[in-house]
């Protein structure tokens, strides 16, 4: 099954026409995308460094998670909404961009990993740091970094 008809349908929507007709819409939405990226990057980094025992060691993992994850989720929501609008600006441009395809795949893996194995590692964490939690932290950092790199690559292809 190809997703091409979906992207063609998107391109024909009024929102897509309005976005691509506007000079500044893409730029403004892209700036929100970047700002949310910085916030997500910062919170994901600190949380995973805590899991590795490298930052905020004196606070329980559960507490650091409770403090930081609302900001991670809020920034992810802004990223998804602004990212969807960027695609709507020119759906066919993204459909054929291989960096975009790789990014969507990595993003799906990163989100699923965060909600399953990573969450489980955070929850099972007590005072000591288990090897499983360390691995989860490193995998999470690599996944989110690669999502960012693939995202930047979209513009270079």
């Amino acid at each position, binding site marked *: 099954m190809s997703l091409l008809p979906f992207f063609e349908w998107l391109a024909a929507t009024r929102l897509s026409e309005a976005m691509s007709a506007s000079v500044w819409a893409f730029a403004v939405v892209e700036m929100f995308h970047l700002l949310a990226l910085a916030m997500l*990057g910062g919170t994901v*980094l*600190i949380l995973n460094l805590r899991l590795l025992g490298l930052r905020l060691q*004196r606070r329980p993992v559960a507490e650091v998670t409770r403090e930081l994850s609302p900001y991670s989720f809020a920034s992810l929501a802004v990223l998804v909404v602004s990212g969807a609008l960027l695609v709507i600006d020119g759906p066919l441009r993204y459909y054929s961009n291989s960096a975009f395809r790789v990014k969507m795949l990595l993003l799906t893996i990163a989100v699923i990993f965060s909600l399953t194995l990573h969450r489980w590692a955070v929850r099972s964490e007590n005072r000591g740091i288990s090897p499983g939690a360390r691995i989860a932290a490193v995998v999470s950092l690599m996944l989110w970094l690669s999502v960012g790199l693939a995202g930047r690559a979209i513009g270079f292809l």
Partner: protein
Amino acid sequence: MTILQICQWLNDSPLGTSIRESDFSFALIETTHVLGITLMAGTVAILDLRLLGLMLRQDEVSDVAGQVLPLTVAGFVLMVISGSLLFWSEAAKMYLNPAFRFKLVLMLAAGLNPLIFHRTVYRKVASWDLAQPTPAAAKTAAVVSLALWTGIIVSGRAIAYFH
């Protein structure tokens, strides 16, 4: 020699030309620049949110600052080195770019803000490390910092739209 002439000279230097004309090195440096900004602004935002009392309230301000600032500095170094190289490769164009000029002013202000903060209210941090709410001066510094870094990211991105 005018500033424009200096920029033109940088622009035309072998290093400037080689970065500009190689797709690969420009893309690589720019990606490093975005990563540096994420590291810098993302971690500075955590300290700012702590100063505003919105995050990690049970942790001493000085502890959060001590934990977060080394990462912020690392992001800053990455950002400045990659940013200088990007500027080098397009110096003449950058000199005339209004978004770039605006960004430089904001960066100057963003540099002054922590200097003032560390010399004033942060000096007595031991007396308000766990205070709720945090002092008004600390909150002001945090709001100014968040606003300036938002402005720097926005104007930095806008540089490309003024090309």
